[in-house]
């Protein structure tokens, strides 16, 4: 048995006579043999509330009657924590099969909410619709695939005696499409005449016609009544098109990477509430005993509710994706067919399962420099931390889950110790966000020694899991014979300079040309294109504190600073100055962003 309404509500007035019906509760049958037995159920059976005695419930029809005539004093006897001229009385009606009427109060219950108004019933001639229909939203619900039966009393019992010589009758407005609903004229109950299929239609919008015949007039009042059709798991899952997906695993081999997806459809709804939901629950099983497959792959399952694709009726689309539960070795080579059984556990029928297939191909990734040698020309004026260039094993920018480390070795070991000491000039560091290497100036002293002309390195790239290694040649050529010691700069930060003139004559860290570069902003207001002095406009500022810049905060504070920024600015997500007002410049403890005209002196009391 189930109740076709989530709550029953009605208004009662002073003077409501004893024996008068108030409303009728219905209970829909789940099995033909069920006959409902109704009872009033109070939380505290021994001490029901004061107003319990005012009502009586017919156990067979579910009609609630007044047991006494309501007086003005009855209203005042009700204590309430709110003021005003209405009181809310909450009753609970339970319904059990007649065979279990002894335990009726322990069966499922529905709320009956009565609004007791501190006034007598309205006189005849008031709003006609009050005689026909209750206040507010009227809606009912029935389960799909269930038996016909009465689901709602249309008459408004509490207003029946207001106009005794009116005759009120109801009917369902005939519509173009067949509606399995009708009115039982004898009882004015709305009846569902046949089982309904939610997957066909989940909401019926009936027009209830109420005819009120007075002495000389016939009034017809229409109002919509919504009937929601409740779902049950009565349709099997199915696949639309393909139940398999081809997956190629090559450069992306890291844990958590997701590949491909297969969709399974189900015309039933799948409630996402409550979280540990039980209806229409899909369970999936990996159909393999191969431990390597079990340890390497997992299937991710998510679902969402859709309507349009199911003929404007809610249904569910399940999505299955293949995901790596660990890194795949760089030299792994394998072809696997992974079968995954999806089971609609609450579907009663036999075809509640669907088998999905993931055809997986894993290719090994060669760690090699295919026919490439690196040659870079380096200015002796370069300052320390100048970025020289990038090195990258084949496809290194696509690598995920393959860890590469780069190192430099000296090609010819038996050169003189003097020449050997030239090789401290260059070093390599692995980039932070990809698997490439960044060559940079690590020591500027060799720039001032004529014997250091050309450096021949061996660039070694080593994969960290299987220690696969590859090498190639790296040639660094100095652009001049030598420079005098006097020109040797004290390594400082370009970012301190706040004007073009002093910037472009300054030797700051990270400057490949040995000179800082001025970027002139053009926008008004706070802008990402702020004016600033930078060692290398290719990499600073670019909103990203790269592996070389993070070695020393003075190289590019615009990308890496964490110090307070004074003036109009927007901080980068992680670090640095994303946007600034006018010119941005930085000292060790603070950065400033301000308009350039700050320069001309303004007076104060010391002038």
């Amino acid at each position, binding site marked *: 048995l189930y109740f076709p309404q989530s709550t029953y509500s009605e208004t009662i007035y002073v003077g409501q006579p004893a024996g008068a019906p108030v409303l009728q509760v219905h209970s829909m049958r789940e099995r033909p043999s069920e006959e409902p037995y109704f009872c009033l159920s109070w939380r505290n*059976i021994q001490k029901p509330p004061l107003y319990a005695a005012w009502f009586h419930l017919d156990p067979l029809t579910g009609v609630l009657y007044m047991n006494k005539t309501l007086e*003005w004093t009855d209203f005042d006897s009700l204590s309430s924590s709110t003021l005003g001229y209405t009181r809310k009385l909450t009753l609970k009606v339970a319904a059990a099969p007649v065979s279990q009427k002894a335990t009726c109060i322990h069966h499922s219950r529905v709320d009956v909410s009565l609004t007791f108004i501190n006034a007598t019933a309205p006189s005849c001639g008031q709003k006609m619709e009050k005689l026909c229909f209750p206040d507010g939203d009227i809606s009912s619900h029935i389960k799909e695939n269930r038996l016909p039966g009465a689901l709602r009393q249309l008459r408004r019992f509490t207003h029946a005696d207001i106009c005794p010589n009116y005759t009120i009758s109801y009917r369902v407005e005939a519509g173009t499409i067949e509606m399995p609903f009708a009115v039982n004229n004898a009882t004015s109950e709305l009846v569902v005449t046949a089982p309904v299929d939610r997957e066909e239609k989940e909401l019926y919008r009936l027009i209830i016609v109420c005819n009120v015949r007075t002495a000389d*007039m016939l009034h017809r009042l229409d109002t919509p009544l*919504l009937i929601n059709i409740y779902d049950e798991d009565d349709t099997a899952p199915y696949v639309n098109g393909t139940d398999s997906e081809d997956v190629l695993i090559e450069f992306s081999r890291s844990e958590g990477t997701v590949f491909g997806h297969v969709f399974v459809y189900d015309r039933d709804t799948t409630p996402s509430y409550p979280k540990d939901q039980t209806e229409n629950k899909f369970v999936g099983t990996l159909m393999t005993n191969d431990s390597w497959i079990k340890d390497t792959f997992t299937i991710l399952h998510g679902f969402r509710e859709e309507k349009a694709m199911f003929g404007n009726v809610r249904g569910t689309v399940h999505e299955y994706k293949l995901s790596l539960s660990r890194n795949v070795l760089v030299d792994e080579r394998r072809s696997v067919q992974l079968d995954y059984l999806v089971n609609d556990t609450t579907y009663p029928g036999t075809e509640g399962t669907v088998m999905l297939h993931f055809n997986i191909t894993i290719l090994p990734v060669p760690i090699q420099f295919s026919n490439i040698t690196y040659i870079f020309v380096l200015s002796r004026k370069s300052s320390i931390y100048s970025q020289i260039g990038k090195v990258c094993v084949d496809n290194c920018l696509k690598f995920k889950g393959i860890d590469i480390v780069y190192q430099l070795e000296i090609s010819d070991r038996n050169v003189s110790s003097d020449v050997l000491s030239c090789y401290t000039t260059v070093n390599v560091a692995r980039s932070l966000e990809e698997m490439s290497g960044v060559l940079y100036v690590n020591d500027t002293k060799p720039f001032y020694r004529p014997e250091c002309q050309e450096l021949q390195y061996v660039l070694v790239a080593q994969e960290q899991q299987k220690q696969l290694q590859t090498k190639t040649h790296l040639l660094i050529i100095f652009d001049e014979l030598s420079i005098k010691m006097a020109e040797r700069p004290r390594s400082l930060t370009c970012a301190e300079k706040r004007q073009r003139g002093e910037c472009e004559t300054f030797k700051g860290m990270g400057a490949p040309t040995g000179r800082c570069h001025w970027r002139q902003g053009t926008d008004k207001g706070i802008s990402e294109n702020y004016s600033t002095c930078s060692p290398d406009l290719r990499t600073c500022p670019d909103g990203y504190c790269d592996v070389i810049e993070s070695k020393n905060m003075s190289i590019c504070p615009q990308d890496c600073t964490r110090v307070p920024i004074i003036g109009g600015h927007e901080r980068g997500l992680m670090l640095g100055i994303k946007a600034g007002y006018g010119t941005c410049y930085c000292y060790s403890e603070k950065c400033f962003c301000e308009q350039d005209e700050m320069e001309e002196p303004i007076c104060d009391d010391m002038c």
Partner: protein
Amino acid sequence: SSLSGLGTHGWRAPMDCLRASEMCNQNPQCSSRFRIMRQCLVGRDRTTMLANKECQAALEVLQDSPLYDCRCKRGMKKELQCLQSYWSIHMGLNEGEELYETSPYEPMHFSDEFRLASIISAMDSALSKGNLCSDTGKPCNPCLDAAKACNLNDTCKRQRSAYIATCNRATPITHNQEPCNRKRCHKALRQFFERVQTEFSYPLLFCSCRDKACAERRRQTIVPACSFEEKVKPNCLELRRTCRSDPLCRSRLADFHMNCQTTPHSITSCPNDNYHGCLVSYVGLIGSDVTPNYVDANHTNITISPWCSCRGSGNQETECEAFLRDFRENACLRNAIQAFGYGADAGFLPITESQSVVPSERPNLQPAIITKPVISSNDIKPVDSACVFSTCANLKDGGQKCSPSNSFECADESMLDPNMDGS
């Protein structure tokens, strides 16, 4: 019960739940039952536990104790403990999945109306002091005036800066991490509304707007990117369940439902025509799991909603939509906000849900004012009044001339075609 005396108007003055539980603990019979009740509620399957004899007996005793009718005061000392005491007994009394629960807070009486009047007068004085709105030529932006009034008041400015700095802190966005610390942001918002006088905080929330920029500023008041929006919209019933697992949120939601529920039997659509009660309980929700906010910068027609949807409600879609409707289509809340915002502008007419008919009643209550209801032009919605066609019963007999009643104009005939399908 015997311990709580009757207040004025035959209304019972509630005892504070902290004192009530202290009194219960001093009474051996009451304290033992109170312990049993708490054990009854701890079990996962509460309903069966509550059906067992011992729990029933405990409930029986507790219904006679001051705990049964106790209440809490907003902003009182140890408010949270008071609310926890309240729910420890009322969780047993409710079924748990009710649409509406009784609010643990003491009701706001009519005397509080005057506080609303003072708020409105504060708005009047702000407007009359010749601020932006009354200056000719300057665009009228009451929300900007509210921000100015707040910035010029030390407490308001400090508290406002505190919650903005907390909510606006763009923590580094690593993959799919939320842009800010939502919990800390909610706490800062709650502190703002608890510590700042309503005369400064309410205008920021309920200022009346005549253009989009003003409406967008109003929408941004609670820093929605952090306190309101989330990557995924949860199901509203799931949101309600999460809220009801926290005593503070549960109390604020119950209070909102109680004070803002659209009431057909009132002129303002608010329970006891109490706008202020609705506004206070709405603000009480800000900073909880069910934080509501304006959904867009529409300055003509405000829509307020929590951040949730009814997708995935299964068979509880109607209940979910009812929960959402209490925010999105709430005439009481809308009237209360507009009354506050337009309070300074005369001529504000509350929208009523349906014709408010108060039948003949006891002589000392003031007569009801009946306003003409408005039927939407294109559809009958269940909540609207029915559509009436009247014809003369004896027209054919050419008898006495009768004029059909035309109390309503109905929409065009097509609207009545029942197979008009919409979901």
